[in-house]
């Protein structure tokens, strides 16, 4: 388990089905795009106004101000297109992206009609805490982190399937999968599945059902890392390495 971030992303990928319209959050979720099987056609949503994101530019035009400024000057107006990159074609993290054929752009109202109206099939997000009833906390640590909730609350309010991609425990070793969240919530009872580097847990009947485990990880190891009601599935699967 050299690269736990890639392990998580690799195990989220099979949960996305051909034809799904999906929003990927920042961090580990963004990596999921790299591990989709051949022939699986996912349409990626960018909440700032894209459907059909291919990915970030390979070149790092954001290295420094002069490089980016020069890039903007040569990628503006009618000079380039969506396959090359354009100063006005960015992702939600303000990084330049390209699009796939059949992609489209739209305004912010249309963009949020998609998740809130139930048009998005799935979203993959990070988490600070997940409760066994599906509550999610991933936006605010009072007194420490103040970034704002961005679009997460709206995306969670209407998206059918919410997949959390996160490490099983926090950096300080404390459990992230809990009986109840202690941090301010992003949304209530929204999480469907949690994919970690050691196990995949589905949330049903207010419990974490472990349906898949990483090779070599023990049930006891998982029990100790989760501070909530846990059930191990009879038909336990093995996670992708």
């Amino acid at each position: 388990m050299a690269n736990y971030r890639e392990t998580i992303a690799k195990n989220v990928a099979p949960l996305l089905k051909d034809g799904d319209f999906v929003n990927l959050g920042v961090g580990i979720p963004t990596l999921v795009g790299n591990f989709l099987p051949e022939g699986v056609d996912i349409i990626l949503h960018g909440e700032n106004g894209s459907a059909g994101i291919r990915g970030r530019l390979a070149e790092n035009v954001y290295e420094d101000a002069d490089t980016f400024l020069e890039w903007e000057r040569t990628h503006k107006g009618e000079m380039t297109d969506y396959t090359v990159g354009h100063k006005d074609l960015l992702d939600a993290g303000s990084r330049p992206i390209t699009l796939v054929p059949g992609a489209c752009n739209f305004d912010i109202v249309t963009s949020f009609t998609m998740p809130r109206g139930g048009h998005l099939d799935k979203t993959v997000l990070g988490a600070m805490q997940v409760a066994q009833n599906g509550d999610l906390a991933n936006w605010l640590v009072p007194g420490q982190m103040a970034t704002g909730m961005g679009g997460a609350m709206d995306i969670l309010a209407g998206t059918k399937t919410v997949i959390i991609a996160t490490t099983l425990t926090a950096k300080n070793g404390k459990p992230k999968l809990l009986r109840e969240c202690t941090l301010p919530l992003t949304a209530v009872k929204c999480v469907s599945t949690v994919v970690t580097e050691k196990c995949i847990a589905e949330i049903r009947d207010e419990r974490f059902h472990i349906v898949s485990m990483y090779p070599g990880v023990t049930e006891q190891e998982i029990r100790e890392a989760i501070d909530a009601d846990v059930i191990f599935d009879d038909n336990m699967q093995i996670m992708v390495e």
Partner: protein
Amino acid sequence: MKNKVITIDKAMTFVKDGSSLMMTGFGQSGSPRHLIRALSKTDVKNLHTISDDLGVAEHGFDQTISALVNNKQISKAECCFIGQNPEASRQYIEGTLDIDFIPMGTFAERIRAGGAGIGGFYTKTGIGTVVEEGKETKVINGEKYLLELPLRADVAFLHAYKADKAGNAIFKYTARNYNTIMATAADTVILEAEKIVEIGDIEPDEVQLPGVFVDYVVEAEEDIL
């Protein structure tokens, strides 16, 4: 159709101490950087800003809204996200910048309501979170919703790729974002455009923002920052 083109200096006269000011842009994308740069060179202060975020501070891209944050020209901000501007976080935690965080979809919908004569609307966004605090709730068809109210401003700054002199505008890719709604929800709407063309040069079906929502058009300067 009227020619609405004015100078950027004239545009600045509409923003006064204490004005509420909407600015388009989602981080770097579609930010009215030319109008913001001009405003950052004025003495206007105590702004009440309404914008997606407070700009992008990294790598010196400080002509987005971050320029106004750095100058401490903002006293109150309604926005969704400040994760790309550590200086805004610092002022917020220190208590020198008052920020009201709003979920992005709700934020967009509130601006739309402000521009469309909608008195308020019900959304599930924020139910069971701090966003619910102090708000009316209502059960509709067995589901609980929050009441959210419209947002309007004195002035709006917009950014287009191309506009005709009557204000009909076209955007590029993700730069469209808040332009279509902020144009409807401010008393004075000022659009900067990278390229200004004659009335009649844009086809009726190509227009992404009707000029009837725009009060003034300003030519963006050739440089980007």
